[in-house]
């Protein structure tokens, strides 16, 4: 996003003017300035640490505590230094920082205003439960509304996202996390006003920090997990060079079929894994056989036909794969019972395996192999249609045809982009493979 449209710049400039208007009554407000400085530096320090340690959360509890404790103009000052000092990921840095500062300041001001109008400040001081919760809830709602409305505005102006789509879901998605932050902020405010003072209030942040840290850890761990699955597939590629990208494409086709059949998202994801991993058992087949050019003897064919069982043996210990494991075992079964390994018929074959079988055959036909050229997509679909009923489930074939008619076939092979250092196809004396 190098060039920012002029109207987005004007939007940010307008927001800055509005923010300054909100801050105008500052000289007349009686605010405990040391509290403003403390909260602002807490927020700035927290954001800096979060950026450096890759925490997932933002320090909204501090901002909301400010809104519950301070007069609105003073509370609006709290996020400003932190936002101005924060690191923007993309250019233009200055504009992004100013936009962030104005957005947060306005949101905090709105929250503070609502809280003040409902008499929340006195309720926090007493503390008058459960009325405190009502005032705080309204303030959190205002904060969330302001935040998402401004966010939707910039999306619509800078990225040319249609307004309706920019706003849809934004509010609903952010309400729950902001509400939890609001509770923590409320607890901070109540303890701050209590005899125990700010020291006790700061303790509230510690569990939140731990929670963010754990969240960041688990997303990192999940990324590593995906990489490991990909490594399983790449291990097959090491042995069987010419099927490169086949697994990923089968995964994509399986996903399209599953979505077309109206399965829920979790199941679609499992079927994608099923497609990606369907040939993982080829690891168990001797490399010489996989790379052999020319026709196979019946003996050799029998050895290769063991790969679904090998694959199942490998992935059966991975709990989250669920029915994808059955797909790995049965993706070479045929509806008429002439497939392998068990010769299951019709509905005995798990649904996931029927999906993967169609996706596998489709990609095998439309990609170039060492022994033949790729066929065009319509010819492949025609062939699939001919085999539907005997070999493939007609429902799955029809679903694939519908999905392709709507979306087209754009196989995106992510694995190829993300493999800078793979020792591809491994030559016997490859000492330099370490980097």
């Amino acid at each position, binding site marked *: 996003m190098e060039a920012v449209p002029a109207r987005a710049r004007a939007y940010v400039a307008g927001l800055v003017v509005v923010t300054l208007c909100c801050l105008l009554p500052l000289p007349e407000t009686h605010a405990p300035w040391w509290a403003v400085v403390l909260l602002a530096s807490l927020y700035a320090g927290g954001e800096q640490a979060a950026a450096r340690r890759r925490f997932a959360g933002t320090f909204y509890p501090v901002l909301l505590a400010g809104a519950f404790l301070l007069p609105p103009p003073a509370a609006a000052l709290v996020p400003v230094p932190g936002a101005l000092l924060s690191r923007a990921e993309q250019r233009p840095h200055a504009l992004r920082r100013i936009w962030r500062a104005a957005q947060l300041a306005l949101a905090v001001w709105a929250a503070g205003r609502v809280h003040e109008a409902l008499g929340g400040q006195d309720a926090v001081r007493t*503390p008058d*439960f459960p009325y405190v919760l009502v005032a705080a809830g309204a303030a959190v709602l205002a904060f969330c509304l302001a935040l998402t409305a401004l966010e939707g505005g910039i999306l619509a102006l800078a990225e040319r996202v249609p307004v309706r789509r920019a706003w849809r879901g934004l509010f609903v998605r952010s309400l729950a996390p902001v509400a939890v932050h609001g509770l923590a902020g409320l607890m901070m405010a109540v303890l701050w006003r209590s005899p125990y003072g700010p020291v006790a209030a700061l303790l*509230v942040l510690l569990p939140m920090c731990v929670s963010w840290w754990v969240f960041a850890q688990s997303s990192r761990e999940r990324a590593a997990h995906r990489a490991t699955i990909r490594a*399983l597939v790449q291990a097959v590629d090491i*042995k069987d060079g010419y099927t490169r990208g086949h697994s990923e494409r089968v995964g994509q086709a399986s996903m399209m079929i599953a979505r077309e059949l109206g399965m829920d998202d979790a199941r679609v994801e499992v079927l994608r894994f099923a497609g990606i991993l369907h040939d993982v058992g080829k690891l*168990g087949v*001797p490399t010489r056989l996989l790379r052999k050019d020319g026709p196979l003897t019946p003996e050799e064919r029998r050895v290769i036909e063991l790969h679904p069982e090998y694959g199942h043996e*490998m992935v059966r210990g991975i709990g989250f794969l669920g029915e994808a494991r059955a797909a790995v075992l049965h993706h070479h079964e045929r509806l008429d019972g002439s497939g392998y390994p068990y010769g299951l018929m019709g509905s005995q074959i798990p649904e996931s395996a029927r999906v993967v079988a169609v996706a596998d055959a489709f990609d095998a036909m439309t990609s170039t192999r060492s022994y033949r050229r790729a066929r065009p997509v319509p010819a492949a679909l025609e062939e699939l249609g001919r085999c539907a009923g005997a070999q493939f489930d007609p429902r799955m074939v029809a679903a694939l045809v519908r999905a392709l008619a709507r979306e087209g076939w754009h196989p995106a092979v992510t694995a190829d982009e993300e493999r800078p250092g793979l020792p591809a196809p491994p030559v016997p004396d490859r000492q330099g493979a370490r980097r």
Partner: protein
Amino acid sequence: MTVRPRPRRPSLTALIHAGAALLAGGSLAVTLWTGMEERPTALAFGVLVTVGELNRWTGARVREAAPLGAAGALSYALLGANAQEPSRHGAAQVVAVVLAAALVGCVPHVARGQGPVLDHLARRVLSVAFAAVCFQPLYNRGVFDHWEGPAYALLLLALLALTVLCDCVLAAALAHSRTGWPFGPLLRDELRALLGIGSAVCATGAVMALAVAVVGLWALPVFCLPLLLTQLSFRRYAAVRTTYRQTIASLARATEIAGYTPPGHARRVAELSRAVGRDLGLTRPELAVLESAALMHDIGQLSLVDPVPAGATADLPGPEQRRIALLGGAVVRQTGVDPSVAVVVERQADPYREQPVAARIVRAVNAYEEKVQGAGPGGPLTALEDLRLATAGDYAPDVVESLARVLARDCLTVPSAG
């Protein structure tokens, strides 16, 4: 640090359990005799602890499995006032309430047959009793009356920190007596884990006690929600870790299914390496790296067109071993695991003086495993003897000695705790 073969001491476990049982029984008796003070408060905290315990997760390698339960129990132990009225409950009542709540919370876990419940209960009772005995009698006698405001908050925090430290020692002692692993590293791991969830438990315990003192029982649901979130995110983290470990184990089995290594080889090397690593006092993160590396140490063989006979890499010439190790390191780098795992896999065939400790362990254990395979009843002794003879260059002497100790101790039956 001296590491000697230690006999197992179930007596220490029994002692701790007996102490906890005695304490629990005594507290129950006293509470029944004197009657409950402030029942609504006791009930609210009891429910909180029960909810925390019900949400406890089992099986994962985490220090505090029920942070909400722990924080709730500790805050009840340190509760000095309720809505600005001084509280009157004593230490015995605290222990009795927490015990009852924890017992109720344990029922589903026992019913499902998961995890060592007794250790968990004993630790909970003893640590809560410690905090309560330190605080309640003095508070009820008015010793803390002149501690006001922030000083009081810091006092609570200090007491909690002390309690959690004691709990660490207790946990390390229990693990030590159960498994025979050296006490020092176990304690160090416990203390290190304290920085994460332990500090959150401390802070939450203090905040809850203070918040209830200010606003009354309203504080419990309000503050529970953020901590419940923490607990849930920890749970999800544990789940992700589990699937990740399963995936690595599957990747490790790829070489077995491909016929490059004997069945179960990677798993046995990983278990034995972990035991040796424990014996040598490696930290928990180091042990995790060691285990992953041991699981994947043969993965480089996938790049070979023909398998090495019986997967016995230890008998190959040095340069060939190093070549396979480098190929393995390249594959491991693709998997996105910690890069230090790839380093260990890469360097597993180097002479031991140039190796990191984990690579030394993998090398020696792998060689032992391969030599024992199919060697018959006298195999282990002959294999150890072979390794000892090669300690001049290939295998680190201290690792080989540690391996001998571990084998003598028969730690190969993997203990459930830990």
